[in-house]
């Protein structure tokens, strides 16, 4: 007598495998509607690349976070929920410009990114450091010490390392172009192997395409360097404390 009742209630309570496809369709519908109605703090998707699966996260302002698989996508999403907002949904159709530019970059046909960025995860001296990085040309590198100097604080070499390690927008903000003074790649949020892949990619694509584009970008960056140095000095009023407070992530 209890058998059929148990079967009945068990069936009411159990998931059905065929609902997977329906739920994917409904999820896409939800993400699209939420995006259109502007109720999302963050939209994200993943992209398979030569440096592994990248998490790409955007706000209505722009791209806010790129994360490597090594960093744990779930952990990064938790962090975004705390620091940006918990209204976060995956959307396989979002961030298509970001995806296109990254695909072009990995194909060796793109040297600069032209994307709206949301810098809200960057503050203080780290912001000053990361602002220097786009001045390092595609296919070139700078040492941590050189970047510390450019950021207006030659003694803050360690802080440059941790600013690079905490870069919320790796690849697009090219912290992979910052290397050790002896020329060895040094640490990287995506792992040292990923850093080597990116440097090799740029080196190969850069030498194939010649140097004309590189020198033009270099002179444009040079004119902006002076103005950044001033703000660097203000923000880095207490570099020792900044350095001590950094987590030991490595750049």
């Amino acid at each position, binding site marked *: 007598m209890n058998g059929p*009742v148990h079967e*009945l*209630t068990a069936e009411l309570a159990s998931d059905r495998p065929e609902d997977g496809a329906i739920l994917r369709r*409904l999820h896409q519908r939800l993400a699209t*509607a939420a995006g259109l109605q502007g109720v999302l703090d963050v939209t994200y998707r993943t992209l398979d690349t030569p440096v592994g699966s990248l998490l790409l996260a955007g706000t209505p302002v722009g791209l806010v976070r790129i994360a490597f698989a090594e960093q744990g996508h779930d952990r990064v*999403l938790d962090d975004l*929920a705390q620091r940006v907002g918990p209204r976060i949904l995956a959307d396989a159709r979002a961030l298509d410009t970001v995806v296109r530019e990254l695909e072009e970059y990995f194909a060796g046909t793109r040297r600069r990114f032209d994307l709206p960025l949301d810098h809200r995860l960057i503050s203080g001296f780290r912001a000053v450091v990361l602002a220097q990085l786009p001045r390092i040309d595609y296919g070139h590198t700078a040492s941590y010490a050189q970047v510390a100097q450019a950021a207006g604080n030659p003694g803050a070499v360690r802080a440059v390392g941790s600013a690079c390690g905490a870069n919320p927008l790796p690849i697009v903000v090219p912290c992979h172009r910052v290397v050790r003074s002896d020329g060895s790649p040094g640490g990287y949020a995506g792992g040292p192997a990923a850093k080597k892949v990116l440097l090799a990619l740029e080196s190969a694509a850069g030498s194939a395409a010649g140097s004309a584009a590189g020198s033009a970008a270099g002179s444009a960056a040079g004119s902006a360097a002076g103005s950044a140095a001033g703000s660097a000095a203000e923000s880095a009023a207490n570099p020792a404390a900044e350095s001590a407070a950094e987590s030991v992530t490595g750049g």
Partner: protein
Amino acid sequence: MPKAPFERIVAQHGRTVLRVCRALLDPTDADDAWAETFLAALRAYPDLPAGANVQAWLVTIAHRKAIDVIRARGRRAVPVAEAPDAISAIGNPSEPADELWAAVRALPDRQRHAVAYHHVAGLPHRDVAQILGGTPEAARRAAADGIRALRRTLAQQEEIPT
């Protein structure tokens, strides 16, 4: 406790909410109610108190959205000479035409709700009573009556030669 990304809420509870919606509404309306439920939940999510029972919260929203859908359908409804079969598979052809779920939908309101929220969603009778009003004991009775009625319906269907 820090708040999880909403995507995780959808991943954890999406299937259950879909089954709840199907217990209340035909498949096409159930899809609408699912989307409306999660959209409303997404809007309200930042204000959800830490430590709240997310499942009960979602089912409460689904309950209201299903009532909205039924009301909207009532306004749209056109009188027909003959009532359609209670058990019909109208809707998206990809949806399973399932006798069990059609039978749940055919239950009287209170039994249908109690079965959906207790047996389908797994909420305790106390939470079901909060959603429906009345006592936990009344919710328990409605769920038990609903299951009995379902067994009867399904047994009768088995007897009908096809």
